[in-house]
Each structure stands twice: as structure tokens, then as C-alpha cells.
């Protein structure tokens, strides 16, 4: 795995009036790395993702992706640079079949023939071939999560942001998802926001904990899981200070 930094934020902040959702976050992900981002509800994880994808304009700080500054760029330009996002609530074209959803993503930079090939590859990779012709508006939440992941991957991103990808999935689906994410890491970088600790243990080696919009601690899975203050944060108790 290359040690080259793919994404780096510096002093990244996002304020909504008096509320600081993301507070001076310094964060970096290497090429091919799979990083988990955890933290209690309201820690700023989804807002952080929105800042990375240009859906929100950060109040301060910078985001460098492959050496390019992302602040001020539009969402579609950022996506074209190679960042894909699977949102917390699956964001799909509900009136269309799963295959059509995936094809729309692939079609942006491919001809029709290649689009169909990529679509088939993604359906197989995520093991949702059986859902290919079903309208996604009628799928279960977990299935929608998988379709959205396939759609994001069909755009061939270099960095994938996954916001609670395992939510609403059956045990089998979670297992398959973990396998896919482990398989993808190395070929691309992944940042996964998740609450399911077992799932995190299954996929991650490195974890970053966000608390009140700030990076509270970073480290390997075992160290983070054993960290008393992290446990307190998850149990709702107040942490005494940032590490």
C-alpha cells in the first residue's frame, strides 16, 4: 500500500450560526487506506462528509485531495476528481430499477457498452444481481444501501465516503459488505462512518473518533476500543479532555 496522502483536511471548520458542527479538524487518509470514523450522534461526522463533497462550504480551513484544493469547488467537480459518497439515508432514483441507478453513475464517463459492462461488474461485486431489475423504491433499507454502494463504485472513485453503510442490513448482508470493503481497500481509499462496533472490528485497522466536531483520538482498533474516554463518550458520559 502506498503511503501517499490522498486526502488531508487542515483546520476544517463548519459553523451553523452559533453551533460549531466541525471544529478545526486535521484529518488525513492515505491512498488505499480504509479508515473508520466513529463518534456519537451529533459529533459532526455527516457534516464533515458534506464539507468534503462540497455539499456544504466550510467556514474555515482547507481540504486537499490528491494535491488539489477542494474548498470552493462544486459538488460535481469534486466527484469528478474522484470522491464518491454513499449517504446516511440512501439517496437513489426511486422510480428506476437498480440496474438503471448503477448505469447512470457509470455512464458519466463511459460509452453505452462500457456502462453496461461496469453495471454488470458492480451488480456481481456487491452480489445484488437478483435486484437488478427491481425498482429501488420498493427495496428494503439494507438492499437500498447495497444498490447505493454499487452506484457509487460504478463511478470509479479514488476515495469513497460511506455514511453508516451497514445500517438496516441483515447479518448476511453485513458480512458480505465487510468482505467487499476489505476487498476494495488497497484499490481505493475508504472512510466509513459506522456505529456498529462489530462491523468496525471486521473491516478497520485505523479509527478516528470525532467528538463535538473535533478529532478526539486516532489509533488502531484495539487501542481505540480499549480507550476509557472513548467508551464514556459512547455511553454518553462527558469526556474530560481531548487526547
Amino acid at each position, binding site marked *: 500500500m502506498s503511503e501517499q496522502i490522498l486526502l488531508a483536511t487542515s483546520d476544517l471548520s463548519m459553523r451553523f450560526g452559533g453551533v460549531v458542527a466541525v471544529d478545526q479538524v486535521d484529518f488525513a487518509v492515505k491512498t488505499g487506506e480504509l479508515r473508520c470514523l466513529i463518534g456519537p450522534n451529533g459529533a459532526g461526522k455527516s457534516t464533515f462528509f458534506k464539507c468534503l*463533497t462540497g*455539499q456544504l462550504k466550510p467556514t474555515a480551513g482547507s481540504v486537499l485531495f490528491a494535491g488539489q484544493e477542494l474548498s470552493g469547488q*462544486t*459538488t*460535481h467537480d469534486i*466527484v*469528478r476528481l474522484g470522491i*464518491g*459518497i454513499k*449517504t446516511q439515508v440512501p*439517496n*437513489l*432514483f*426511486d*422510480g*428506476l*430499477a437498480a*440496474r*438503471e441507478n448503477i*448505469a*447512470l*453513475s457509470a*455512464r*458519466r*464517463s463511459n460509452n*453505452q457498452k462500457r456502462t453496461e459492462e461496469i453495471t454488470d461488474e458492480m451488480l456481481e461485486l456487491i452480489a445484488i444481481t437478483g435486484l437488478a431489475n427491481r425498482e429501488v423504491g420498493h427495496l428494503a433499507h439494507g438492499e437500498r444501501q447495497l444498490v447505493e454502494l454499487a*452506484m457509487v463504485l460504478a*463511478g470509479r472513485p479514488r476515495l469513497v465516503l460511506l455514511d453508516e453503510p451497514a445500517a438496516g442490513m441483515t447479518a448476511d448482508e453485513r458480512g458480505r459488505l465487510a468482505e467487499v470493503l476489505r476487498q476494495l481497500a488497497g484499490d481505493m481509499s475508504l472512510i466509513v462512518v459506522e456505529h456498529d462496533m462489530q462491523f468496525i472490528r471486521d473491516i478497520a485497522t485505523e479509527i478516528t473518533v470525532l467528538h463535538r466536531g473535533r478529532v478526539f483520538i486516532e489509533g488502531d482498533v484495539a487501542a481505540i476500543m480499549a480507550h476509557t474516554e472513548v467508551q464514556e463518550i459512547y455511553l454518553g458520559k462527558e469526556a474530560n479532555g481531548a487526547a
Partner: protein
Amino acid sequence: MLRNLPKDWLGAGFVVVLGLAILIFVPVYFDLFEVLQMTKYVVLALFVLSLAYIWGFGGILSFGQAGFFGLGGYIFAVSSINMGQTTLPFLIAIGLCVVFAAALGYFMFYGRLNDVYLGVVTLVVTLILYKLINHTAGPEYIIGTARLGGFNGIPSIPIMTLPWQPDQEMEPAQMFQYFMAILIVVYVLLHILIKSKFGRVAISIRENEVRSSLLGYDVRLYKLCIFMIGGAIGGGAGAMWASYQTFVDPNIFSLEWSAKCLIWVIAGGVGTLIGPIIGVIALEYLSFQLGQTDFINNLIVLGTILILVVLLMPKGLFPTFRDIFLKLWRRGGGQGGGQGDGGRLG
């Protein structure tokens, strides 16, 4: 062989064949008055297509489509009076309407106006044009040899000529056929566009703007292009209207025209091309027939019919009858599954 064709292409092919039959046989079997009436329906069908496309296939609800209709009419009137021919003025009318749509659309879409404000802005711009043209009655408002005429409008607008016969005005039957041919060409081009990559992305934007953007598509640019296409069609229809009537006045910009256009699309079926065409013909024919009677105000009857259509057939006339037909066909052992003109991407 036809079985191998996608169902929506089969539907479009049927519409084209029907259109060609109408183009050929109407002047043969109908009298002059009826041909003139049908010419009016053809022009209005083109006008309604402008909104049917941008709303149904791009998700842009414009309350001011009459703005392009009026601009096209006025630009055609002024340029044809000055130039003494109609082909180039027709193209100029379309071209300037595209430019106007580009300028207005740029501020709306790149300014990230949401749907409600977009509706308000398009409506207000149209009403400003209405007021503006209404105040051009003085002799100083003259462009070349064409006086704008304010509320009196511009009379004596040249009747269209064929591009290869610029000195010979069209007969009513020729005009009907010429306009019908334009309608068929625009219908086919829109159908091709809807089935193209551009059209598929446009529908995806209509369905989910945020996700389209997160897939890397420039939503603003797509919407701008869709709006410009709508402006071109609306402007072209306006030019044809001005030539058909040989007269244009500021009422062409009025709220009534914009509202009528919306009603035709709603009644015919949003998300289809043929539905709004059926809507405009059905409602205008009904309006014409009711206008000949004295026992009841035709607007009251029309209003009641529209309310009933919206309440009983919220999808519109065409999609409702299509669904009923498909249901019956499936029950009878046929293989159904029509999807309209392009609501889906597949």
C-alpha cells in the same frame, strides 16, 4: 420485427405515422375553416411541447412559458416586416429566444433558485414583458419599419413562405402542412433527446437533483440546456402563431397564456410528450365548441372539466387511458409494460 423494437419507440412511431397521415389527409378532406382551426391546434401543440419537455423531462416548472411564446412572436413580427421574408426571421426568433433563455436561465440555475422561486421569477419576467410591450404605443417605439404599437399590437405580419419559395406566401393548406411537419420533427427530436444520455441525465435530475450532482453531473448546466431547448420551441411556436394570425399584441405575454399552457400539460399528462398535445387539442376544441353556445359560459364548463380531470385523473388524460388500455390488454393475454414517453431510463 416490430416486436423487437422498444415499446416507447413503437409508440413514437405510431404518433409519427398518425401525424403524417394528418399532414397529408387533412387538407384533402377538410374545408378551409377546419384546416385553419387545425393549424391553430398545431401551433399551440408546439407551444405546449416546450413546457411538456422542460417540466416533464427536466423537472423545471416554468410559470412563464408565454414569455418565450410572446418574444418569438414579436421578434418574428419585427424582423419579418423589416426583412420582407419569413425564413430568416423564423430562425432569428428561435435564436434570440434561446439567448434570452440562456441569460434568464443562467441567473436562475447558477443562482441556485429553488423550484418555487424559479416559478415566481419566470412568471414575473413574463409579466414585465407584458407591461413593457404594453407601453410601446408611441411613435418613438419603432424598430426599422416595424412599429411595436403598444396595446394595439403589430398588424400585417407576413404569412410564412417556404424557404425555397420566399416570394410566395403559403396557402392555408400549405401552412398547415408546413407547421405539422415542424411539429412532427420537433416531436421526433425531443423523443431522441429524451432517449439520449443527455435525456437520461435530465430525467435523473428531475428525480433526484442531489444524487445527480453526487454522481458528478453538473445539474446547473443540464437545467440551463433544458431551459434553452424549451425557450427555442416556445419561441418558434410564437413566431408561427404571429404568422398564422398575421397579428400579435401584448396579450400573448399574459398570465392567461402561461396558465393555459400549464393546464394543457396537466390535463394531458406531465412526463409525456403526446399527452399535452392531446390535452391542448381536446381543451381548445371543447372551448371552441362551448364558445358557440349561449346557454352557459364556456369558462365555467372548462373550469369544471379541469377540476374533474385533476381530481379523477391526477396523472392526466393520456397516462390514465394508457394505463387502462394496458391493464385490459394484459388481462386479455397481451404483454404489457408501456412506460410513457420516457419516465424511466431503461
